[in-house]
């Protein structure tokens, strides 16, 4: 179904613009059809906005976020990991880096260089106090830095060692290194391949814990476990690869339920409120701040395709206002969007996995 839609997408876009062109004369005739179409938002893209020093290269741009001063943080999979054999155990370090740019795209510095939990970047978010949180899907850690780049806190625990033929080696006893596998008990505050973090106005944290746990974890602002909900499945309240999470000003929790092709909305305690479908496979979602909040969702192409790729702009109730972009490698195209920053709802930063870049997107004519 997705493939068929994708093949038709370019024609549909042409159709829309053609209809717009003739709208002045035959508007009434076409308006009925137009309402079934999603309006294209006109936009510009800049794939060379971030300037890296000569010997620093972006890898998969898994995470991008801005702080209140407009600084841009990119958490990227750079590779360069190392390993060490210890008896029969194999220990691995490195593989991701966190870069900081100013609001003009000038490179400022790297933070977290060589830190224990930087293995496989998944996302980065900046909280209301301008702290930077790096979510790592390899180490299962979520690492908090202050605005100066100093380490403040870490959630979950990195598996002590890895088994190259499969599975993580947990710590002895307690199982805390096991990555939230909950040895017979309730899953707690150890994650198993976490994907994203968001905060409500009180500072409570919501972590999407994705791949095998398929759940949301709620922690208080100090990092103390409050509750968890969800399991793997397709029923309301269940998830299949929750890849991104966002919270609105009322404290409602929006989860990009990627594999189920829907955004699920929960209240602050995890009760199911509603779901938003018909926006493809949401890989990344973002809710803009301010009096009128917008919800953005990327129907990203999987890495082995160049289908879909458009980003939707919605009201919080799921009403689609428009869309922009398509999958591809050129400017104004996207290669598997994994994170969106929407601090300014008309100036977005798009983290692309397969194109190894952050694209700055400026939306025009937003109503």
């Amino acid at each position, binding site marked *: 179904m997705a493939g068929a839609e994708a093949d038709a997408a370019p024609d549909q876009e042409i159709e829309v613009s053609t209809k717009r062109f003739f709208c002045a004369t035959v508007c009434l005739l076409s308006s009925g059809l137009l309402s079934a179409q999603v309006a294209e938002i006109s936009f510009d893209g800049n794939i060379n906005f971030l300037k890296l020093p000569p010997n620093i*290269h972006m890898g998969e741009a898994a995470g991008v976020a801005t702080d209140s001063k407009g600084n841009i943080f990119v958490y990227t999979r750079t590779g360069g*990991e190392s390993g060490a054999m210890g008896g029969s155990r194999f220990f691995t370090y490195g593989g991701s880096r966190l870069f900081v740019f100013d609001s003009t795209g000038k490179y400022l510095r790297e933070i977290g260089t060589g830190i224990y939990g930087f293995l496989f970047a998944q996302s980065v978010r900046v909280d209301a106090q301008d702290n930077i949180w790096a979510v790592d899907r*390899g180490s299962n850690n979520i690492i908090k830095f202050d605005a100066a780049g100093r380490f403040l806190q870490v959630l979950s625990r990195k598996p002590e060692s890895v088994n190259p033929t*499969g599975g993580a080696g947990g710590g002895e006893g307690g199982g805390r290194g096991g990555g939230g596998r909950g040895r017979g008990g309730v899953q707690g505050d150890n994650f198993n391949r976490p994907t994203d973090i968001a905060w409500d106005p009180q500072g409570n944290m919501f972590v999407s814990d994705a791949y095998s746990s398929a759940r949301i974890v709620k922690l208080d602002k100090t990092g103390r476990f409050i509750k968890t909900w969800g399991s793997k499945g397709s029923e309301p309240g269940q998830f299949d690869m929750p890849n991104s999470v966002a919270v609105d000003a009322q404290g409602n929790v929006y989860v990009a339920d990627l594999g189920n092709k829907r955004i699920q909305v929960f209240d602050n305690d995890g009760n199911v409120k509603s779901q938003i479908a018909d926006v493809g496979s949401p890989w990344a979602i973002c809710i803009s701040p301010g009096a009128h909040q917008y919800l953005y969702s990327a129907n990203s192409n999987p890495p082995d*395709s160049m289908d879909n790729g458009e980003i939707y702009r919605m009201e919080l109730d799921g009403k689609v206002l428009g869309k922009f972009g398509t999958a*591809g*490698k*050129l400017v104004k195209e996207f290669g598997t969007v994994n994170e969106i920053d929407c601090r300014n709802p008309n100036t977005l930063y798009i983290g692309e996995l397969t194109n*190894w870049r952050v694209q700055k997107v400026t939306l025009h004519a937003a109503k």
Partner: protein
Amino acid sequence: MKISDQTCLIVALLWAAPVFAQAPAGAQNLSPAAIATRAKVQNVPEIPYESVPNFLKLPPNLYLGEGIGIATNSKGHVFVYTRSQRTRLFEFDQNGAFVREIGEGLYGFVFAHAVRVDPQDNIWAVDEGANMVIKFNPEGRVVMTMGRRPEPADALAGAPPAPDPANPGKYVFNRPTDVGWDADGNIFVTDGYGNSRIVKYDKNGRFITQAGTKGSEPGQLNLPHSMAMDAKGNAYVADRSNRRIEVFDNDLKFKTIYDNVGTPWELCISPGPHQYLYSSNTFPDNNDYTLATVSGEVYKMELDGTVLGKFGKAGKQLGEFSGLHEIDCRNPDVLYTSEIQLWRAQKLMLHPTKK
């Protein structure tokens, strides 16, 4: 057509063999492996050549590893893509002086396989560990990526799913080996050790078509290890494990086979009005040193498969080849070669008209 021509030639040579007793010297004593390794074409004229000693000058504490890929740009700069402690890409000038490293610490540099330079002097690295083809602009910045490095996190969480050879995917590779372009900028990728195909993309990386499944029938491939494009847009594939070169047209329809030059590890087609095809019957790294007597030479051919001459042999001395892995033939008489086993690159001066 071509096959039958060659068959005639081979049959003729076989008939002639007893007459020229000295030509296939000791042929009767060759092991089955050596007979399979030896090129079918015999009595090929030797092309005189010499290797420039110590052409590449590396700074202290910088070393080449397995000399996997080598290519030149229009200014004569030489790019070497090598398996060091990490996979690295070095640039040298036309005199062999070290210029810089490109893509230092890159996410897609895992296990080097080939480097090529396109007509616009963009540098393309093919990495069979990352399963990626990475395009750098002449300034050395990444401008396009193809394929995708498997997620380490997947491997950490358990064995990744086995690839499906019947459905290899349009935009992912399984140990790709080489890249080439036609005059329109369409991109061709041989893929590779895991898959058995050649894939055509447009200049923006959008899939167009593919050819090849694993096998030995005409049009099938078994380890497409290298490729080269001619000016008409035909694709020549080194079908290594089938010991043959396969030629496909620009739509990747099978055209013909050249199977008389041994085991082609590496192909290169020179530019210009008269294009030549070079193919390396590389001495394989399989611990059977008897094969060194029947392999290691490079053939110079017309595009139609006619063998014009050959040069080189297996060995570790200057001008010999130890696991020749890539050839640059921008100038058909000045070749650059890289070798796996000897961790080196050579600059070769050919003198095809000298006798």
